């Protein structure tokens, strides 16, 4: 009897010990957002501490969301100035919420022409104000970028990510919870998910099925009158 009792007790303790151990795991405290040096910091607000080189240490946090701000294919004529306008890869865990669907992109070079010019949740005016276009705009934004979480933003080089942070802060988000992690092109870590693929006949294709992509169906939204 004693043996059975001892075994059960030990099993319980072990189980509780394991459970307790798991539930007591504390998340590493995040450094406050701090912009890095050079024009990457000044112009785009890329973070000094959590960036392309260190993001691997901050992935998979339940207290955070991870957002890549690029489109799968940017309709701008980027071939006119060289380069690739497709999303060719991303960091594992980042979900794509295209910045051009949130707000109109301004400041592209003439040769590129217009990027996506369709409907957007907000309109950015020349004075830097964000005008709400749909009754659901804020709700959608809060769904994709929950205010009670840390928000990690990336894109190709840090530009769209920086613009997203500017927009969110302007609309009331806490700037101390938003990190511009920078650009996928600089990422050389262990969580790279490649989307661009060279086939056996040397043709190029894109595995967009790997991407968690958040589209916005504007036809089902209600325009602000």
């Amino acid at each position, binding site marked *: 009897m004693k043996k059975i009792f001892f075994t059960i007790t030990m099993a319980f303790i072990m189980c509780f010990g394991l459970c307790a151990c798991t539930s007591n795991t504390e998340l590493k405290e995040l450094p406050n957002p701090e912009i890095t040096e*050079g*024009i990457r910091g000044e112009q785009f607000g890329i973070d000094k501490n959590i960036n392309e080189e260190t993001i691997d240490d901050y992935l998979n946090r339940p207290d955070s969301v991870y957002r890549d701000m690029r489109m799968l294919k940017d309709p701008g004529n980027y071939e006119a*100035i060289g380069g690739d*306008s497709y999303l060719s890869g991303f960091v594992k865990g980042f979900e794509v919420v295209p910045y051009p669907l949130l707000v109109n*992109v301004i*400041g592209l070079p003439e040769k590129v022409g217009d990027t996506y010019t369709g409907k957007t949740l907000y309109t950015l005016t020349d004075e830097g104000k964000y005008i709400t276009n749909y009754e659901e705009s804020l709700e959608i934004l809060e769904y994709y970028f929950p205010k009670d979480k840390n928000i990690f933003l990336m894109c190709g*080089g840090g530009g769209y990510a920086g613009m997203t942070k500017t927009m969110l802060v302007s609309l009331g988000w806490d700037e101390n919870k938003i990190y511009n992690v920078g650009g996928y092109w*600089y990422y050389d870590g262990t969580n790279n998910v490649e989307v661009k693929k060279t086939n056996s006949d040397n043709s190029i294709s894109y595995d967009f099925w790997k991407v968690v992509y958040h589209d916005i169906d504007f036809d089902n939204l209600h325009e602000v009158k």
Partner: protein
Amino acid sequence: MKKLIGFSLAMIFCFLLVGCNNKQDTFSLDKEYYQNNSFNELDKNTFDDLINNEKSFAIFIYQPLCTTSYEFNKILTEFANQYQISFYKMSFSDMKETELKEYIKYYPSLVIYYEGEIVDYLDANSDSDSEYYKSVDGFKKWFSNYVSIQKANSNDNLILEEETNNHTKIDAKLEDIVYDENKVNIYFFWGNGCPHCEEEFKFLKSIETEYGNYFTLNTFEVWYSKDNAKILEQFANAMGDEVSGVPYTIIGNKTFTGFSETYKEQFLKAIKDQYHNSYDVYFNKTQ
């Protein structure tokens, strides 16, 4: 002996304060990169050829997505138009397939090559490089540390031209210099980028109103112009000087190496004393 060493050190120190040594690290890009302003896309094979053939050139590293290259692109385009210099351009993603990936971690960047070797590049993640990204003048300040910048005139001849302090410095040509018995010719040898030369330019400009009738200023840029460097050597030899830096100025039978506040009075004295029937190294000694 100790006194001699002390004197020599003082002289060296003094010259360091007022003069500029020759700019040994400035070079020209290969000829085909001047007098036009193209931005040709560079692929890996062509890049390898340029390295193997020890070419001197510059590459703009950019990436079209995410808007981060655009502002610098505009500045670079304006610079290329203004100074008629051609650059290559290579997307960051293509660059990662080349040796440059060991150096360039972020775009935008600009890489300068001299005879197939990297000389320097701009770092977008460095505060010390920030000013070079923000304006044409800022970029020029960095680029001209290494590369000779020339500007094409309407006759397609290259002349050096530097606009500062609302005056334009265009160098003299020997054949255009004349002797005037009521004006002393000043021969002013300078280096583009030399701060002491700039001070001397300012001073000479400041006395132009009052003393302009007493002198004619003839300037010769010697860091970028081999012809002018030869003229400097020829004139300095004729004056019995061994010149190792600029500014170097000849006013009549007086010569001045370097420039500082204390030289101003001496310059004025030399002008006032010698403007009439002056000694002229060009007409008296070198012709």
